């Protein structure tokens, strides 16, 4: 049973854990390191049914004081080897991109240096749903 209450509680726990892990966290839930400002919006993707792929266009933005080649990755933490490079910004102080999100699981977006693959910042896009998946739901209007 996945009621809104339990989903909300789970989300709250995730947010609280995130707060504890990253003390420099911004008010909108964005992970921020001392070296870089990083945001991804929206941070939640809602699908109709549990287990269905959720689609969203995520606006990625980052800014840092010095130029460096920065790469964007997405990671599905349920799959250990799922780190995938999406794009890089060569020798830049700031970057912006619209990323097409398509996943039934939460995905983490990471900014890493191209030179030494050092993690600079990350943020997680949460997938939630309106209805628990059931094959028995029928929709008949009239």
């Amino acid at each position, binding site marked *: 049973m996945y009621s809104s209450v339990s*989903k909300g509680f789970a989300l709250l726990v995730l947010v609280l854990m995130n707060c504890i892990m990253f003390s420099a966290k911004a008010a909108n839930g964005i992970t921020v390191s001392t070296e870089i400002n990083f945001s991804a919006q929206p941070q939640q993707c809602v699908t*109709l049914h549990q287990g269905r792929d959720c689609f969203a266009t995520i606006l990625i933005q980052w800014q840092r004081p010095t130029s460096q080649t920065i790469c964007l990755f997405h990671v599905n933490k349920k799959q250990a080897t799922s780190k995938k490079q999406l794009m890089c910004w060569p020798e830049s102080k700031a970057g912006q991109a619209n990323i097409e999100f398509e996943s039934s699981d939460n995905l983490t977006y990471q900014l890493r240096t191209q030179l030494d693959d050092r993690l600079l910042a990350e943020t997680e896009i949460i997938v939630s749903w309106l209805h628990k998946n059931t094959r028995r739901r029928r929709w008949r209007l*009239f």
Partner: protein
Amino acid sequence: MFTKPINPNIINRLFIYSIVAIAFFIAATTHASPEEQSLTTHGNTPITKDAFEWQFMLDMALVNSPVMLTDVEQTELWDYVQLGLLFDISYKGFFLRTNSRRSSTILGGEELGYQITVQKDWQLDVILKAYIEGFDPIEILDDQNKDIPELVGLNNREYTSGIALRYSRYFENAIFYIDIASARASENEQGHSATGIIIDSFYSYLIPYRNWDIYLGAGLTYYEKALMDYYIGINADEVSSARPFHIADSTFRAQLEVYAQYPLSQSWSFNAGITQSFYSNSIKRSPIIDKNKLTQLMVGVLYVF
């Protein structure tokens, strides 16, 4: 089928419906188990019936739903508003489930049922539901603010409920079901009632498009003569100059439907749909019926608790 523009009985029906739902909810929470109930048949075929699950929803919609009764139209803003409190509950194979246009029929359009057998691609249920809504000509005439001679002095018609055997077949992105129901139109003030068979089938095909669910549906329903005669037949005590004696025939209804749903947030969804119904031409021979094709539209939101 014979939906009235205003139905004051909805409150009473919602009350009964709420009582049934609450009783079911209490019974279920007392014995709730998070696991699904798995049984084993003699052939070692697993049967997995619904465990305790529930969903409570609030439906708010604007509905354009024409009525087939002669000269009856939706007249006031409230006629276009549909509000519904919806429960979907299951426990150990028993279920109370929302299935159709919720606030238009007895028990809010809910189906009370039991899963006889649940297999990978199909299942068999026994269900209890209201199949046809009744109408009260006095209420309709009060609402219409015009004279409709065909309805003046007509006896009221009560709702029809039925007990049915439902076979459901599941495909990759589609569902087909057929109900074979023994139905009874309740006795009205004049002591008239009717019993008959209703065979109701529906096929629904889901097209997922990004976060949208788009359902294409088609249905075919058969109503036995006795039931149709109860609703659209004219008895000897109802005959007037505008309303000759009439014996109705059995009737078929074909339906085509498109329904779409989109999640607005974790609790709200947007819903819209259109249904085109075609009834047998013969129903227009009844003096109280002037249309056999109905186009119904719905646009609304659903809140999931």
